[in-house]
């Protein structure tokens, strides 16, 4: 007898827990735009910092090509995730502070291709930096910066003060 009574609450609790989890899952599926935007900005900052480190490194008399390769890897790895930073519903329609333009979602193919472009160029930069040819690195840094710009010109709105 007692076993029945003890089992039931367990089943009940389990069932309740499962249904809460399901509800919670639905709630989580609906994007928390604020959080997405904040972490998106953080990620872009990481790319910006890595890029600054590369440019700073190139200012030295004898640039550390290995360090530049490591920063290029950071950019390459991060840029592979760029499309995932832009789930639907995290654009200007949220009314939140974001420079992401609606065009990202209306022209997703171009956007994704631009993000891919950065991944490609930064991968090249990593390879070239490992080679250690400073002039070649400088040229590829320009190309990588150009890849950033391609996307920013089209999909990033004006600065918000």
């Amino acid at each position, binding site marked *: 007898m007692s076993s029945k009574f003890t089992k039931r609450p367990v089943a009940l609790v389990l069932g309740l827990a499962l249904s809460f989890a399901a509800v919670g899952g639905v709630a989580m599926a609906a994007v928390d735009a604020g959080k997405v935007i904040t972490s998106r900005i953080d990620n872009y900052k990481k790319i910006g*910092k890595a890029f*600054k480190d590369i440019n*700073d490194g190139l200012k*030295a*008399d004898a640039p550390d090509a290995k360090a530049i390769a490591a920063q290029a890897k950071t950019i390459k790895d991060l840029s592979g995730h760029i499309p995932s930073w832009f789930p639907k519903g995290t654009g200007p329609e949220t009314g939140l502070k974001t420079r992401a333009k609606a065009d990202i979602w209306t022209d997703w193919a171009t956007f994704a291709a631009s993000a891919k472009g950065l991944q490609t160029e930064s991968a090249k930069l990593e390879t070239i930096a490992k080679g250690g040819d400073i002039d070649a690195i400088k040229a590829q840094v320009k190309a990588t910066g150009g890849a950033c710009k391609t996307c920013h010109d089209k999909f990033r709105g004006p600065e918000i003060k």
Partner: protein
Amino acid sequence: MSDAAPRTALWDGPTRLFHWALVALILTAWLSAGKSMEVHKLSGYAVLGLVVFRLWWGVAGGSTARFVSFLKGPKATLAYAAGLGSRKSGETAGHNPLGAWSVVAMIALIAVQAGLGLFATDIDGIESGPLSDKVDFDTGRLFSDWHELAFRLLQGLIGLHLVAIAFYAVWKRENLIGAMITGARRFGTAVTPLKKAPLWSLVVGVLLAVVAAYAIAKGFRIKF
């Protein structure tokens, strides 16, 4: 002001060239900002070179360009300011006491404003000043904000400068722009004319300016 009065020299050539070069370079730096950063940076280094030249010229230049000749204390400055409403022209061959402080404020702000740019970084970490490697990304961004803020202040001072020139033209019938172009103008009363600086001083000033601008552009990483 009597047209019969002879024209008196008051600004030497280097001072005038400094002035108009600064006008051209600040306009260039302003218009190229955020668009053509290579041009923006070069014009900024040149502006800093000009500031260095002007500091030298302020101690070893023509008489009217020397700081000791035109910087007056608060008493003289206030006394001059009190007479601004009078339609009588000031009649000094050189900066008046109030304009003198405006000159110093502009030169100081230009030095600070351009200096801030040396540490600035853009939001993408792509464009940065020659000393930006001395600060981290977030600090570089702060320098960028200050660089912009200082430019707004500079625009204010330049605006005030232009208003003052217009005021002297309309109210006191003094043509300050013409004098800054030709170097001379007519005065109603006898004034002490410009005493020019020797050529060697100009040569030293130009050398100092060029070396300073070059060193700054290289972030002081110069090898001999």
